[in-house]
């Protein structure tokens, strides 16, 4: 117990942020220098990060019990972000072990790092639970939702790799534009957007967002054009290192199926919980609705693979859109829209 008294969960998590950050740098370095030692140490760092992340979550659980208000550590934005990083890490490690796609680490590690970095800005106090949250459904709901989110995050990373490998100019234009819009929304969220001013600023926001999207789209497609010119045959080192398009396509799809199942389970557990807390299993609350929107987009994506000739490109479009919806469900709704989940901010 002596160790417990010295180490605080928040301190561990702050440290782990840098471990994920370092892993990200090593994975990137591996793309550039392609030295096995780099990616191998990156994997080790990722594993250390994951173990530390686990310890942080368990410790926080213990800390809440020591405070006499014992509850699962999944109840506010800080805790959910720490858990989000954890789910990304474990999912990535499993995929790396199973499919040997180390190049994916260059996306998974930074996502885990960003989640924890954003967590560092949140209120870290352990607060007692309000009565509505005191339910056994809490743990099931949070775990299923976040496994879903993490799978979609990893699938997003895979879709980006697909993009790089396919060197598709149109596709990269769209991805750039989407990234631009996402960046604009995230900036708005980070800077603390006021809900009251929404409609007055919506017009301006639309044009700014469109401008940013256009710019980002052009920039990305220009980069892809440049890459194509410098390496016309696709014999370049980076291109060779990346898995085949077929493998990437299948892996993205499998990851999305995994995410879809857990998102379904997340919506269902949330629904059953809402029915026992508020007497309605569905009330079109913005968070609920946005999780449904995400579900519908990925549902459409899964069906799109049944249409002849739609694999690959269109699948990537929809998985990029889907991840945009995931980000909005997770961050956008709490900040921009009002509803039952507002405690999470």
């Amino acid at each position, binding site marked *: 117990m002596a160790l417990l008294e010295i180490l605080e969960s928040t301190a561990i998590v702050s440290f782990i942020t840098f471990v994920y950050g370092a892993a990200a740098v090593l994975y990137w370095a591996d793309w550039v220098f392609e030295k096995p030692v780099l990616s191998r140490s990156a994997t080790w760092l990722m594993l250390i990060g994951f173990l530390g992340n686990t310890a942080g979550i368990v410790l926080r659980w213990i800390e809440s019990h020591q405070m006499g208000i014992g509850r699962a550590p999944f109840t506010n934005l800080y805790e959910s972000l720490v858990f989000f990083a954890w789910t990304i890490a474990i999912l990535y490690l499993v995929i790396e072990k199973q499919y040997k796609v180390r190049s994916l680490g260059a996306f998974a590690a930074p996502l885990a790092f960003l989640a924890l970095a954003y967590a560092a800005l949140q209120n870290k106090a352990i607060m*007692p639970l309000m009565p509505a949250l*005191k339910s056994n459904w809490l743990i099931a709901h949070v775990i299923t939702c976040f496994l879903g989110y993490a799978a979609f995050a990893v699938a997003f990373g895979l879709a980006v790799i697909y993009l790089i490998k396919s060197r598709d100019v149109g596709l990269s234009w769209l991805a750039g534009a989407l990234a631009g819009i996402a960046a604009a929304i995230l900036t708005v969220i980070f800077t603390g957007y006021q809900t009251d001013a929404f409609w007055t600023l919506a017009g301006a926001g639309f044009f700014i967002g469109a401008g940013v999207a256009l710019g980002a789209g052009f920039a990305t497609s220009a980069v892809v054009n440049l890459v194509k010119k410098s390496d016309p045959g696709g014999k370049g080192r980076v291109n060779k290192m990346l898995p085949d398009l077929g493998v990437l396509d299948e892996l993205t799809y*499998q990851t999305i199926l995994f995410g879809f*199942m857990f998102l*379904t389970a997340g919506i269902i557990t949330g629904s059953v919980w809402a*029915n026992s807390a*508020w*007497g309605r299993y569905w009330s079109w609350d913005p968070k609920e*609705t946005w999780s449904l*929107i995400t579900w519908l987009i990925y549902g459409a994506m899964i069906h799109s693979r049944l249409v002849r000739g739609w694999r690959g490109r269109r699948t990537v479009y929809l998985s990029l859109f889907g991840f945009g919806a995931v980000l909005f469900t997770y961050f956008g709704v709490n900040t921009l829209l009002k509803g039952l989940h507002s405690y999470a901010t």
Partner: protein
Amino acid sequence: MNNKQPPPPPLTAVLDFFASVKLSIFLLLTVAAASVIGTLIPQEGMAEIHHPMYSPFLDAVFIKLGFFNVYKAWWFQLLLGLLALNLVVCTLKRLPITWKLVTGVTPGFSRGKFKSIKEKHEIKLNMPAQKARDAVLDVVSSRFKTVKAAEDEDGYTVYAEKGRWTRMGFYVIHLSFLLILAGALLGSLFGYSGSLNLEEGQTSQTVEVGVDRQRRDLPFAVKCERFEVKYYEGRDSVSEFTSDVTITEPGKAPWRTFIRVNHPLRLHGVSLYQASYGVSHYSGLVNVSFKNLETGEKHIVPVPISAQPTALPWDKGMIMIPSFTASLRSRDGHNMGPAVRMHIFPQEGKPEVMFMPVGRPEFARDVMGLEMAVLEGEEIVPVYYTGLKVTKDPGVWVVYSGFILILLGCMVTFFMAHQQLYIKIVPSGSGASVELGGAANKNSQGFEERVRRIAGRLEKKE
């Protein structure tokens, strides 16, 4: 000869349209887009809406389109209906084929199918062909449900198969989707949702439903014995709201139970939820002092907080204190502390109503030649009401069975596949050449890996 295909009859064309996957994708994305509208524009029943919210023109357009109540708008319901129809037609069209495939006879090794497999693994085993066949059967039979071996002109063939039933998985998902929609419809047609505010000690057998506050009978009577708010130790955050109630069902002895947040009471298809609470009024009494300004005599009268008047001293009339408030705001916004509302009924003349602070003799007033002040109260306690939400939803179990089925369906459809493995064993020299090839209806990469592992396993058998 005419090479052109004749145009399909109209009915087939319509059916084909509704059976198309492209339509499903279009509908899924349209429902998603429509749902976005409902999260950006404030919806009726979620917040107070004051028209016009936008410009009067835009407001009128939005009202016409039902944008303030998207999820109940006819066109939204129509989209859901079309999605359901799309699903039913798809199922009716494909189910017979799948059913035949799933329930049909197990095929054997098929030369044609084996030839069409692109990726095959060939291994050489250092044993006679017959032994090689036994080794193959040994490895394969523990991994596949049905295994068929046969002998043909150039050696042996083995066909192994598993998971044929998993092809039914996606029908299960679609059926559960329909179940959820049907359950929701059932709930909206035959269910209700109302509220019931009960003071401590109060009993009710009806509930107010909807905006027009229609009263509906409950199949039992609810009496609120006590309402309690519990706090976390040493904190001011609430840990629990509890209603202590007595339920009386016709022909049964009354029984007592608790209703807490997340722990509703479910009885005769009706559910009671702890939704809100509040102070309906206070009970107790206040001491009012009177000084007769003529004689200088003093009198203290205890007046209960109730609608019952009490006699004033010296036969001056009656006094009544119908309500108490924990904090009175003065006109300039000052908090005057606890106060009472007081009615004075003189023997003759008009009654007077006034607010008097409690325990503040400096705010004494002269009434009918009496100097009156409100002294400390005694045993003034709030009487709480509990706000219960009462719902009846006969569709909820249909929805829940849809929930369970959709998860099972996802597991089967996404992560289990119909796998078929063809193996050909041909004697070559003193040993045998074994060729393996297979197909799965899902995750072909994963199945490829599996075939590779089976081949590796066989090589170790030597």
